[in-house]
């Protein structure tokens, strides 16, 4: 059997796991990251949501997410943010620094939320966005041109235009036009199209097709396929050649901005010396007293034992397999940490219910050091730290806080693991 040794073992390759790996490695620790598969950040919008709507009036977009989160922590001390407030701003700076260093800058909207159009023409509040998605104040735009590709399913400019018109977020006389262009034929997935657009000759042909339709002052909206890699110049080149601002809007997965963020973070942590093993499933652990002494994993049929001083559990919720359930009960899948179930119904009647679904709030309770605790608040395992969607108490689809909790908790776990003594 193969043995591996590390100071810090991260289980999971999502946003919180990768952030934890980056932070722990920065502090000079020997870090290993294992994951069953590619994490969910590649399926995300690529934007970092912090807090979407006002606590008092959920119909209003939250203007100051950081201040709102401070209020939330007093109101709801069970929310994960209540354990993360001390590092929240620090973690966002850290995240932005990594993005900046890797030529994939993430922008904030002067401390407030961005309100960005989606592929459906709805508006979505979010806190940090890649430069290619940062459409500024919609009220300032006199004309939008929404461009789709004939080769791409799942993006219909007319739908975006029709819904954005109805949104009431635009100035009264804002003109909205749509245009379909061709990138050379075929029926392409977002990735194949993004790859094709990296070819300068293809881009020239796209520019030629768009130019006759440009009105003065037009801002162009595209599906999120403008470039493969995190440091791609496709969006910039398009904007330069057209002489108009060009942005990508959020769309259903698989969309490129989330994948770019994932690839960038993986590349970054590997560069920091983190050993990354994807396709390796952790299926058990040995716990002596209150310490995890060994983690057991299987990679392609082969058993591996991993010995680490600190383990960061970033395996996600039910969808990612971090939590498991049966009718009436739920538990964490590796350490069998308890997940409180209660007597209420786990889901609302409507799929898109405004109050969200209770199962999204299920997770592991932690103390301020992110250690798992039981009903009485007693630490269950000292050297296991919990992050991201493994944490109990957040209703991320409704609150718009998933990636914010992931960055802050990943950062904090990485920092704590980095500070852990010998």
């Amino acid at each position, binding site marked *: 059997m193969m043995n591996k040794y590390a100071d810090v073992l991260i289980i999971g390759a999502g946003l919180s796991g990768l952030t934890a790996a980056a932070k722990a490695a920065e502090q000079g620790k020997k870090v290993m990251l294992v994951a069953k598969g590619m994490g969910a950040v590649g399926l995300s919008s690529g934007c970092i949501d912090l807090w979407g709507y006002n606590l008092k009036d959920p119909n209003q977009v939250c203007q100051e997410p950081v201040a709102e989160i401070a209020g939330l922590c007093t109101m709801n001390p069970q929310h994960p943010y209540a354990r993360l407030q001390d590092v929240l701003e620090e973690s966002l700076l850290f995240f932005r620094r990594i993005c900046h260093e890797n030529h994939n800058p993430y922008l904030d909207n002067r401390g407030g939320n961005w309100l960005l159009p989606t592929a459906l023409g709805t508006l979505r509040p979010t806190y940090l966005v890649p430069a290619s998605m940062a459409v500024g104040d919609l009220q300032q735009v006199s004309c939008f041109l929404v461009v789709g590709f004939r080769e791409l399913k799942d993006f219909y400019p007319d739908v975006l235009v029709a819904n954005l018109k109805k949104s009431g977020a635009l100035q009264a006389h804002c003109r909205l036009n749509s245009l379909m262009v061709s990138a050379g034929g075929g029926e392409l997935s977002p990735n194949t199209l993004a790859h094709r657009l990296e070819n300068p000759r293809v881009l020239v042909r796209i520019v030629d097709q768009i130019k006759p339709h440009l009105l003065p002052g037009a801002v162009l909206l595209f599906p999120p396929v403008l470039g493969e890699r995190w440091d791609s110049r496709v969006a910039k080149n398009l904007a330069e050649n057209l002489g108009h601002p060009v942005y990508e809007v959020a769309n259903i997965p698989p969309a490129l901005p989330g994948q770019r963020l994932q690839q960038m973070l993986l590349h970054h942590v590997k560069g920091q010396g983190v*050993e990354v093993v994807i396709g390796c499933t952790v299926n058990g652990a040995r716990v002596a007293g209150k310490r995890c002494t060994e983690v057991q994993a299987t990679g392609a049929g082969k058993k591996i034992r991993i010995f680490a001083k600190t383990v960061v559990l970033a395996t996600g919720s039910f969808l*990612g397999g971090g939590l498991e359930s049966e009718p009436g009960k739920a538990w964490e899948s590796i350490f069998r940490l308890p997940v409180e179930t209660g007597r209420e119904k786990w889901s609302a009647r409507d799929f898109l219910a405004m109050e969200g679904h209770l199962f999204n709030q299920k997770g592991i309770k932690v103390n301020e050091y992110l250690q798992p605790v039981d009903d009485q608040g007693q630490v269950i395992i000292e050297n296991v730290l919990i992050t991201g969607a493994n944490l109990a108490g957040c209703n991320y689809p409704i609150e718009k806080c998933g990636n914010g909790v992931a960055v802050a908790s990943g950062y904090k776990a990485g920092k704590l693991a980095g500070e852990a003594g010998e």
Partner: protein
Amino acid sequence: MSSDHRFALDNCIKCSICVSHCPVARVTDKFAGPKQNGPDLERFRLEEPAAVHSSIGYCSNCKGCDVACPSGVAISAMNCRAKGEYVSLHGASLRDKILARVEWMGKAARLAPSLVNRLAGFQPLRLLAEKMLGVSAVMTLPRYAEKTFLELYKSKNIDEKKTKVLYYPGCYVNYNAPEVGLALAEVLAHNNIQLEVEQFNCCGLPLITNGLLDMARDQAKNNLEKLQGYINKGYHIITTCPSCNLTLRREYQKLFQLNTDSLNEKMLDAFEYLGMLLQQGKMVARFEELPLRIGYHQPCHLKAAGCGVPSREILQLIPGLRVEDLDAGCCGLSGSYGFKKEKYAISQEIGRNGFNAVKELGVHQVISECGMCQLQIHHLTGAAVYHPLQVLAQACGPGRWLAK
């Protein structure tokens, strides 16, 4: 259909992570992608085995889908079976039948290796082969060695007291790159361990990827029987080719339902074995300084083994050596795939990331465990490409392991 298999199929949540990580689907729309060909069509194949899409021929079997899948779906095995089904329905081309028989080609080339090498570089013949057979006229062909590894390796007088391990060299080392096997013997001798050899069949991977599953199954049974004999005698089995390793341990079980439990326990990549010695304090970690900065390319099939990069820890012990990860994904060649006329351009397009990474890092030497990856990186960049064992052998003492 085993319940295991059914379970794996039901695990697919249609998230498309596999599609977005497929190197082939990234660069071409000729391949419908791992999800459609795999779990999507597999539902139909539960009732009708012939439900295979012709684009399955464009799967390169890199297994990136298996690695990316967070739900444990055996996507590549479904695709391999589908390709087998497609070939059993429509037949394989003469070219594919030839390219699949790597062992047979190696044996045939034995008759006159230098002539074969010369003909492989003779452009009119290559153009003819492209026209008649569909083998790309521009892809660099692997060179055959003057003598096979099995001919070159003389087990020095067997010392019964020494620890002995069995080596499964695979076709590439035996016929094309015997220096890799010799480097392994050198490194093990440095650690007082004796390497034993045996005649094996090709692991069968080229047959599998060309859809000739029945023939691959027969070779699998032969190989497994022989290997089991050594395992029963207490041997560790060492491999240097990640694709052979994965095929023997994993594909035999996934595709042919053969029991590979003891192989999973006893068959180790050379660096895994050395790592084990190191951890047990049994490794002679006395290395000469090697002031080199080299790139490292992780082969897809080593990635798919899910145990990281076993050479990493050991190469770090060599003073002066700096290994930089190319982190460029699939090289694009995928065994016989990139030699096929209609796939050559796809293969080169996939490999562009590797080309860019070598240029960006400014390295002139690259190491990689897989012979085919080595060939492709050399073809793309002109860099000298070695197996990491050659670097380690060089650090163990005299000899010219990095000469090319």
